[in-house]
């Protein structure tokens, strides 16, 4: 049971009230959240410092134009923000940010982290199709009933980590039947409690995990099983892998959109792994044919070896793919088995090191001795 701030307003309005209160009455100097860009439902992450600007904020809008973890890391890269900032972001974005902090790509200092029990987001395509407005009412309806909305991102439909870790405040949305009338914000840390003092609304208490969140978790587990089964129907193995990635344009959009791929110069964009003219010749002599430019599968497998252990399954890679390759589905199969192997959940604990570069002497002892 943790303390909760209850505001007698719709969840959208209630959260905006709290953000406005933080900006006006506390030492928070900026709000980092989604902002409405036009009437068609386009949004963008923004840093807002004035109350006027904040009126356009729509932190709970079910779209993810970019993984916020990546954006937060951009402005806390060299040092923590000088003034305290409140950031509203989804659980997977928060986990991605934690993974970046572990890699010295950002700082948690001076940040008030506000997250939510997440119902998922729509693919960016629905914005391009102009369907975003139509999607909003059913989104909130399915959230109230803790059901999976079938139009959501595939990764969101099967996400089991929709309750945030390490957030100071959590907006409860999943399974809240009175979403339109009451906004419940759980205060998970003492920092969160301090900031919510004297805020509009009453302080009560609330459970983070309810019967409704359990229900959603179960449903998503089932959905996950179904997605994996559907994917495996295509067949596993090398042939299937080549088939899956045969449409790949090598635009590397998946790596640019990935919050974990933080390198300023990717190995695969550099000259390091470039094909030399001689290797074309030798490969042609062997095979009699060659795809040009080569290296598609190598790029995906190589990227996998770099980031899969920290993959938070946010689904940005699938979403930005111009040829609709289910990148996230392929990657999550590897990332889940790897995370299981190293007993590691990315973004859960900022003190826990990334599995590569650390080791335990007593693990995998049978390897190498045969």
């Amino acid at each position, binding site marked *: 049971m943790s303390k909760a701030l209850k505001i007698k307003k719709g969840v959208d309005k209630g959260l905006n009230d709290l953000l406005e209160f933080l900006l006006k009455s506390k030492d928070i100097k900026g709000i980092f959240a989604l902002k409405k860009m036009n009437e068609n439902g386009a949004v963008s992450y923004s840093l807002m410092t004035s109350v006027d600007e904040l009126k356009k904020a729509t932190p709970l809008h079910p779209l993810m134009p970019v993984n916020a973890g990546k954006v937060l890391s951009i402005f806390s890269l060299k040092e923590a923000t000088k003034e305290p900032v409140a950031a509203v972001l989804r659980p997977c974005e928060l986990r991605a940010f934690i993974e970046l902090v572990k890699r010295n790509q950002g700082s948690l200092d001076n940040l008030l982290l506000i997250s939510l029990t997440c119902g998922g987001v729509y693919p960016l395509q629905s914005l391009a199709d102009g369907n975003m407005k139509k999607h909003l009412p059913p989104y909130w309806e399915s959230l109230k009933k803790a059901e999976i909305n079938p139009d959501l991102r595939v990764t969101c439909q099967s996400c089991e980590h929709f309750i945030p870790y390490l957030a100071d405040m959590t907006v409860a949305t999943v399974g809240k039947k009175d979403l339109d009338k009451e906004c419940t914000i759980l205060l998970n840390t003492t920092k969160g409690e301090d900031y919510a003092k004297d805020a509009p609304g009453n302080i009560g208490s609330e459970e983070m995990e309810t019967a409704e969140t359990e229900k959603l978790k179960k449903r998503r587990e089932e959905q996950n099983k179904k997605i994996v089964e559907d994917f495996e129907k295509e067949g596993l193995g*090398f042939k299937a892998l080549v088939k899956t990635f045969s449409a790949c344009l090598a635009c590397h959009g998946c790596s640019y959109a990935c919050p974990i791929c933080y390198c300023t110069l990717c190995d695969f964009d550099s000259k390091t792994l470039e094909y030399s003219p001689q290797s074309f010749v030798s490969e042609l002599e062997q095979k009699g044919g060659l795809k040009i430019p080569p*290296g598609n599968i190598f790029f995906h497998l190589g990227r996998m*070896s770099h980031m899969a252990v920290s993959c938070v399954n946010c689904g940005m890679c699938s979403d930005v793919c111009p040829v609709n390759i289910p990148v996230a589905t392929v990657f999550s199969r590897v990332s889940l088995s790897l995370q299981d192997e190293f007993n590691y959940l990315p973004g859960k604990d900022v003190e826990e090191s990334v599995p590569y570069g650390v080791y335990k002497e007593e693990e995998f002892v049978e390897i190498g001795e045969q």
Partner: protein
Amino acid sequence: MSNEYVPRIIGFLCNWCSYTGADLAGTARLKIPASLKVIRVMCSGRIDPLFVLKGFLKGADGIMMMGCHPGDCHYQKGNYNARRRYVMLQNILKILGLEKERIGLWWVSASEAPRYAQVTHEFEEKIKKLGSNPIQEEIFL
């Protein structure tokens, strides 16, 4: 010449233990499989997973990684890092659709020439049974 299938095996050997062990095997005139092409690296921790993946995509039938026994690494912890990367590579091989037996990690010290000869022969036998790497025929890569 016989028509026996000769696999293509790449060995990444650490400079301080396994490469010296291989050298000793040569001095002792132990027979080593001709299918094994050795690449010397300064430490098993230097074996970038990309080396291994590229090896397989270029058509290697098997890849051996060798380093100092745990606790004996010239750089203290390079072989422990290699061990974790090896676990990661096995998981990626699964999605690549290759048998995980095509890659192996062994600790071979500078004095273990007979062990070096033994594990390389055993690995060659295993690869011969598995047959050639199906990626060799694939043009779309």
